[in-house]
């Protein structure tokens, strides 16, 4: 067994004049080796990078030169997120209105109160509730069915419901890459197919800076 045979030395028989050679056991204590083995296993398990990086697909729209070729969106279904520095997010629905009585420029957050996700879920519900069926729906359904061959008929029928929902993402020069990816990730999480990364306008940027300065 796993021990050294120590009785080998006592093999002298009385009366025999011949000295017998010491008989050594071939068995070795393997416990330290097992220890070492498991130690190495633990080391390798801890140093292994388990998570492989994943890839997030992003399709860009082709730039159009003429403004009349640009995609028009419905004001009621549009929500714009503005990203500022230090993870600040702001949003407005429809068009930005700033006048003496106030504005529709509001502050949001990545997680916590008034989070982007809650806003998107709310907006999506509103858009679906206000959906009016028309002839354009058939094309959207056909496109959806082509893109998702395994989708159920109900899903295909529903694919048109949120077509008016358009999310516009406008990061300013102080927002980070993480913020942008987080917002794009929210689009995936809430299954929003129509969104766009748009350059921020000067007015919007100054509004962000103003709000950030006030918050301090």
């Amino acid at each position, binding site marked *: 067994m796993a021990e050294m045979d120590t009785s080998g030395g006592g093999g002298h028989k009385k009366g025999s004049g011949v000295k017998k050679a010491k008989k050594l056991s071939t068995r070795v204590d393997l416990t330290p080796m097992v220890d070492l083995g498991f130690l190495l296993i633990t080391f390798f398990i801890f140093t*292994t990078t388990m998570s492989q990086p994943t890839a997030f697909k992003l399709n860009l729209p082709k730039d159009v030169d003429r403004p009349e070729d640009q995609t028009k969106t419905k004001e009621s279904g549009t929500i714009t997120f503005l990203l500022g520095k230090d993870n600040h997010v702001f949003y407005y629905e429809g068009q930005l209105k700033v006048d003496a009585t106030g504005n529709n420029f509001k502050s949001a957050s990545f997680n916590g109160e008034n989070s982007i996700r809650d806003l998107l879920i709310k907006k999506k519900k509103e858009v679906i509730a206000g959906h009016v069926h028309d002839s354009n729906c058939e094309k959207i359904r056909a496109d959806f069915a082509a893109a998702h061959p395994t989708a159920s008929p109900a899903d295909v029928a529903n694919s048109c419901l949120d077509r008016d929902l358009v999310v516009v993402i406008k990061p300013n020069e102080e927002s980070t890459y993480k913020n942008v990816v987080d917002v794009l990730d929210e689009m995936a999480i809430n299954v929003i197919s129509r969104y766009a990364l748009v350059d921020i306008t000067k007015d919007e940027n100054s509004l962000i800076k103003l709000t950030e300065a006030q918050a301090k």
Partner: protein
Amino acid sequence: MARPKIPRKSTSIDMTAMCDVAFLLLSFFILTTKFKADEAVEVSPPSSVASKVAPDKDVVLISIDKDGKVFISMDDKSQMEYLANSLNNTKNLGIDAKAFAKLDFIGAPFSALAKAATLPKEQQTDKFLPGIPTDTTKGANELVEWMKIIKDAYSGKKMNLLLKGDNVSKYPSFQGVIAAFKKNDFLKFQMVTNPESIPNGTDLWKESQKGAVAKE
């Protein structure tokens, strides 16, 4: 009364079998471990719910490090040589194509490229190299030209365009990269992210639940 003799059993166990198992596991872990490649450009990407594993073949990777410096790397070294030769022809930069092909990544403006290719290995990191200029406010977006040459180099071949940005890098570098992609009609690309679980109760979560039920 003579007691029946209970044979005394040894408390030591044969460790050989356990040792075998330990080393079998050890060899398994050693062989399956892929050590994280020692990356010269240090980038910690954000996380997303995307579940697709990033491709690792035919890759053209654009990295944005934490200071917003942009680097290009590709796994096909013969394409690097093509890039060097084509730059030498069009811009007369005098790059040593063989040395250039050995570089892990490209990260210098055209004017400093020939010098950057001769730098010693330990200086080929994002600390020493200035990165490819993308900021249009400070000069030309040289990535546009890079992408054009890369497009030529990979014409007719499969190519996976990956973008890996650092969490804290600012948006303008990302914007510059996107602008360069758009100008060269690279409208589909993938962003390398770390995996993240889908938040419960969201639309994507419902969809994945549906998918799981349908598969069962």
